[in-house]
């Protein structure tokens, strides 16, 4: 009896420790980012960093303005959201409400399979097929543009959006649907006026998680967006994203240089953006549970 209690106690503590460790890692990463990135602001002002229009990290004197990079990430993300949210949410409704049982399983596993494709492969396919196509379609000087990145990333955000949104739709109580139908509403009216509002917080969470994935994505974006650090004026221009900048330049920097600290400072900006997005998603999800 005593041995069993001791075992119970040990396992309990172990699980407690595991939970604590994962939080500790996040906190440690955050502290490390602040420490390495914060050092930049001895050399460059915060405003010059966030609103500076020139990114020439290895010139003398170096210029660390990340406005073009922030806008680059923003443009690619907005484009990807515009493409993936309508398609993703609509297909979640189709799978949850409309599709016959057999088709539903096929579609669900198909979309989960899409999530399993490594991003390099999606980027590579985008580079070979999408980039020349965009160039000819819009008659552009080059196909390496923000919109190529948006389309590529839309493919990556879709699985997250579809599966989380579908769960939210399925979680809407059956009685809502039955009540609406009993009152004489058509199927479409039921979906649009009853189920959609009921599932909305879950759908918002799905969208936010999808968008979070898009902002953090690096490899595919680096391969198709051209990486030019100019202020973009539309989706049909080349852009350089925050993530691609870190990935492309981290290999070269000398530890402890201003450039090194600047890349970590970009990391802080990214961390802040994804934190806000996840926070909104979390709030919405909490609403669903209530």
């Amino acid at each position, binding site marked *: 009896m005593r041995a069993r209690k001791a075992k119970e106690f040990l396992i309990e503590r172990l699980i407690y420790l595991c939970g604590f460790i994962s939080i500790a890692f996040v906190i440690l990463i955050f502290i490390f980012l602040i420490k390495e990135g914060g050092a930049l602001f001895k050399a460059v002002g915060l405003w010059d960093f966030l609103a500076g229009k020139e990114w020439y990290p290895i010139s003398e004197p170096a210029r660390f303005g990340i406005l073009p990079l922030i806008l680059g990430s923003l443009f690619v993300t907005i484009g990807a959201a515009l493409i993936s949210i309508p398609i993703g949410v609509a297909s979640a409704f189709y799978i949850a409400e409309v599709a016959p049982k057999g088709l539903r399983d096929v579609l669900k596993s198909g979309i989960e399979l899409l999530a399993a494709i490594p991003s390099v492969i999606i980027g590579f396919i985008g580079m070979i097929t999408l980039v020349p196509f965009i160039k000819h379609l819009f008659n552009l000087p080059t196909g390496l543009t923000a919109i190529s990145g948006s389309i590529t990333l839309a493919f990556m955000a879709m699985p997250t959006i579809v599966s989380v949104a579908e769960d939210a739709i399925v979680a809407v109580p059956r009685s809502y649907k039955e009540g609406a139908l009993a009152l004489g509403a058509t199927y479409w009216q039921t979906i649009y006026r009853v189920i959609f509002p009921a599932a909305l917080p879950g759908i918002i969470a799905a969208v936010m998680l999808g968008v979070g994935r898009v902002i953090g994505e690096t490899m595919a974006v680096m391969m198709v967006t*051209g990486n030019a650090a*100019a202020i973009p004026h539309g989706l049909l221009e080349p852009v350089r994203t925050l993530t691609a900048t870190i990935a492309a330049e981290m290999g*070269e920097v000398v530890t402890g240089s201003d450039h090194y600290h600047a890349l970590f400072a970009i990391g802080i900006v990214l961390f802040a953006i994804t934190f806000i997005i996840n926070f909104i998603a979390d709030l919405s999800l909490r609403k669903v549970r209530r």
Partner: protein
Amino acid sequence: MRISFLITILVVIFGLSIGCASTPQELKGSIQIKGSDTMVNLAQAWAEAFTKKYPNVNIAVTGGGSGTGIASMISGTCDIAISSRTMKEKEISQAKAKGVEPVEHIVARDGIAVVVHPSNPVKNLTIEELRAIFIGERKNWKEVGGKDAKIVILSREVNSGTHVFFKEHILRRGIEKGPEEFAPTALLMPSSQAIADEVAQNSNAIGYYGMGYISPEQKVIAVSKDKALPYLEPTTEAVKKGEYPIARPLFIYTKGAPQGAIAAFMDFVFSQDGQKIVRDIDFVPIK
């Protein structure tokens, strides 16, 4: 995507030195080589030929850019840095602060080819025209004798020695700390191969890479220092004679004077066989 960064070539030869007592068999050790993407194929060829002669020496070659190689040599994660530019003063003082005394060796020469799509009618450009194109002063091909189309500038990422060399020698006319920069609209490509691929499929693009990458899918522009001088393509002859205007030495940096396996490797690099490999990979030998 940095392909060359990922291609780590491990040449492992199993020594069969039973009863053999000649010197090449006895030399043991391992050498880490890292740096310039321009030189990575060259270093790999050297490593393969060298390990055939010295089967008990392991050599690993990694790309990533000249800056990457120099930074890793300073931080101690590689033994030899291959570089397509000289070390900056800042890097030398950083190395000394960490107790590393870098020694420079010129091992080959390279011409930087300026390339366009084969359908582009432009054949010749002066250094001054190149400068105007790459800093974004001339934005349309018709301003340099081509058709009416926007110029798409392709450059390497900032960790590339070729990027730094081109900026300092073309954009800044040789003044190392001049004010000129690549136009912000320049697309920064992660590798020389990526530049070659984009030039091959984009009729408005202009890019640059080491002459080892020249292929029929891109058209090489003949370059001249001045309108009055002849326009030259980056051939072995023109680079060797110093006539081709965008040429540079290629370097190997070692920590202190080379010793042991590294000394044997450097001797091999400078030997007739080593320099023949330079010619085979389409660079220009130093002798």
